[in-house]
């Protein structure tokens, strides 16, 4: 064990001290931060106002929408069909339709637009609507409470029913409002469009895993080839077992990757915070305020005043960042983070062992091509299929691909933000761990023989033979 630690230490220190590592560590956050800052900057320069037609069949919400410098809300009193026709004629208008409901709480909004409505607008609308619904629910609850405490009120056996009802209402006071978006094409066809943050988060997660596997898996492979071509390998394996060397390398590189990843996140936040403090006007609503708002809506039942001040103010307009934070809160964050780290780590470990085996099987990097195919195909395939999976995260295809260990790290990450049954996550995770042991066992066999083979062009048949050599 002590020797594995020495190997990990060497791998880690030599890689972290490299110039390329330092350059990447500095450049990465600048790129990432600009991804966050640039849209904010661009949005702050944009000054054309958008008109939003509101067809509010419930009559509950319209007057709650406040105009600001980006949006003007205009009431529409006509049928949905007419409203849509007007929209088609006038082009730049956006139509928000809140259908009336008979039994359920009206928590649905539909946006029709020929443009993609910004996350901003959607966030604002759902914010206002849920706030209003919460207010209504609370009022109903308070009414019940008053009724129960009225001396003349005799409901007989109804008392318990009322109690139960108020409890359910309390539980349901936190309301999620669904805003669906339909893009109205030029032909008037309606297409469902996706701006859901869940997708962005899932897709971002799987791309990170994909990149991590490729970047750092390839580093493992290059490290093995380096040891082979510099011929130090035989000196080392006369001191340690080949398996120890392979695992030490894989773990060392993983730690380099994690270090880089954490530094990126830290630096990105530092840069963003620095920019935010330097240009406060562009970032009016800080996310501490945001936290207050969520805090209030949770704390509502305990408050005496039913109506919390409507703190979702109209000037949210420019802040994309807060929106991202807001959207994050709609996802089950602990599950997301734990499963991201899990798939990140084990996905890498599974593939890194294969990369190490390839490195051992060849004499130089140009020879790696023929063996890279079986590794790159499932990875690229899963990233391509991920786009289909996003549209239909419950399909059999999505299910099976998230069970196969070669594709599950990428595919599962796409699905998790949409909510995946726990047993599926556990099963897929279990299969991935078993897959990791399997590939490592296989790779170690190839590695053990391959590192001492020189000059021979290895073929798949050759590798197959190596697997069955006795220690």
């Amino acid at each position, binding site marked *: 064990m002590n020797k594995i630690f020495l190997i990990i230490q060497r791998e880690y220190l*030599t890689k972290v001290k490299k110039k390329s590592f330092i350059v990447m560590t500095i450049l990465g956050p600048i790129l990432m931060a600009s991804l966050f800052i640039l849209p904010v900057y661009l949005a702050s320069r944009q000054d054309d106002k958008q008109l939003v037609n509101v067809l509010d069949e419930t009559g509950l919400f319209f007057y709650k929408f406040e105009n600001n410098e980006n949006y003007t809300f205009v009431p529409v009193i006509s049928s949905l069909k007419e409203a849509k026709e007007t929209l088609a004629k006038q082009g730049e208008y956006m139509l928000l339709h809140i259908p009336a409901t008979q039994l359920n709480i009206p928590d649905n909004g539909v946006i029709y637009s020929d443009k993609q409505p910004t996350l901003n607008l959607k966030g604002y609308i759902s914010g206002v609507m849920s706030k209003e619904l919460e207010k209504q629910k609370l009022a109903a609850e308070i009414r019940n409470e008053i009724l129960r405490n009225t001396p003349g009120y005799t409901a007989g056996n109804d008392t318990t029913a009322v109690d139960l009802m108020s409890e359910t209402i309390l539980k349901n006071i936190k309301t999620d409002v669904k805003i669906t978006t339909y893009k109205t094409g030029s032909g008037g066809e309606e297409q469902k469009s996706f701006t859901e943050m869940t997708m962005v988060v899932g897709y971002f997660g799987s791309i990170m895993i994909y990149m991590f596997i490729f970047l750092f898996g390839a580093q493992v492979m290059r490290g093995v080839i380096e040891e082979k071509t*510099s011929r130090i390998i035989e000196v080392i394996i006369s001191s340690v077992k080949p398996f120890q060397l392979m695992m030490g390398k894989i773990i060392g590189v993983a730690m380099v990757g994690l270090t880089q990843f954490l530094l990126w996140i830290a630096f990105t936040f530092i840069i963003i915070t620095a920019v935010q403090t330097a240009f406060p006007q562009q970032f009016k609503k800080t996310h501490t305020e945001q936290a207050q708002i969520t805090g209030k809506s949770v704390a509502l039942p305990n408050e005496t005043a039913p109506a919390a001040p409507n703190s979702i103010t109209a000037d949210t307009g420019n802040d994309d960042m807060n929106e991202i934070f807001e959207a994050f809160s709609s996802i089950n964050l602990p599950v997301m983070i734990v499963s991201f780290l899990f798939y990140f780590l084990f996905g890498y470990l599974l593939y890194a062992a294969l990369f190490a085996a390839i490195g051992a099987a060849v004499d130089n990097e140009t020879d790696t091509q023929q063996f890279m195919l079986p590794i790159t195909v499932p990875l690229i395939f899963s990233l391509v299929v991920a786009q289909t999976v996003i549209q239909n995260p419950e399909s059999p295809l999505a299910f099976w691909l998230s069970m196969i260990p070669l594709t599950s790290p990428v595919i599962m990450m796409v699905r998790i933000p949409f909510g995946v049954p726990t047993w599926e996550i556990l099963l897929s995770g279990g299969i991935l761990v078993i897959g990791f042991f399997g590939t490592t066992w296989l790779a170690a066999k190839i590695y053990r023989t391959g590192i001492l083979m020189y000059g021979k062009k290895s073929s798949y048949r050759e590798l197959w033979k190596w697997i069955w050599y*006795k*220690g």
Partner: protein
Amino acid sequence: MILQANSVTKKFGDFTALNKVSIHVPENSIFGLLGPNGAGKTTLIRIINQITGPDEGEVIFDGKKLNPDHISMIGYLPEERGLYKKMKVGEQALYLAQLKGLSHHDARLRLKKWFEKFEIQEWWDKKVEELSKGMQQKVQFIVTVVHEPKLLIFDEPFSGFDPINVNLLRDEILELRKNGSTIIFSTHNMASVEELCDNIALINKSVKILDGPVKEIKRQYFTNSYQVQYRDFNGTPFQLNEPDFEILNSTVEDEIRTVTFRLPSSKGPNDLLSAILPYVNVIAFNELIPSMNDIFISTVNAVNGNQIPEA
């Protein structure tokens, strides 16, 4: 006996790399492991280093079956050797010494001593790629011996060294033996075998075909042949009335004739001298001792000649 391999067999698929090979390496000696390319020497060395395990047979080190505890007692300089090019010399030497089980502190102390001995202290902070090949070999030698192993295995240690460094290295190897180490020495350089080795084993096509102390082997191959040189002004070949003395060779160069005789086992050098002295003026006389090179070539050829060539 520090190391004993008992009928070790190793197969790679259908290929047999070692076929029931046994060797015995006495303590505090230099043991030569000889054989043509591809004979199985490296496989045997890798088994001793526990890089691979034998399919059959066993290896006994210092009275015990070879086990992972022995790794720190063995130092190995492979034929194909190298260092991490981008790493600093000192850092790398420390790393490799620690992999052999030395503590960081001990490794540093001992390395410093060796670097002083070889007068290469100023290389400590240089990157390996900045050193010449010969310099790298010196560093490599140091990391092989720094943990003071009981058994040292050198695979072609002199390749890549200039003559001055070959001498330096040879002296070091002899000193290691003086200090109690045992050395297994695999090489094609027969001159160095003759100079250094106490015992040898010759492996050919995965089978051991010859082994024993160098002196005894030479005695086995002793042919009772002698070389005589005398002045020959008129260029007449030598005539001798002794049918027992077989003339193997006779050449003349710059009026000096060299004749090689082989004697029957009943006769000695004095018999030959007394037979020829009446006729010629002898200016040189010496016994023809077979070199290890001759023994190597004749033994390998004899074995290969008697074998049906493999398909």
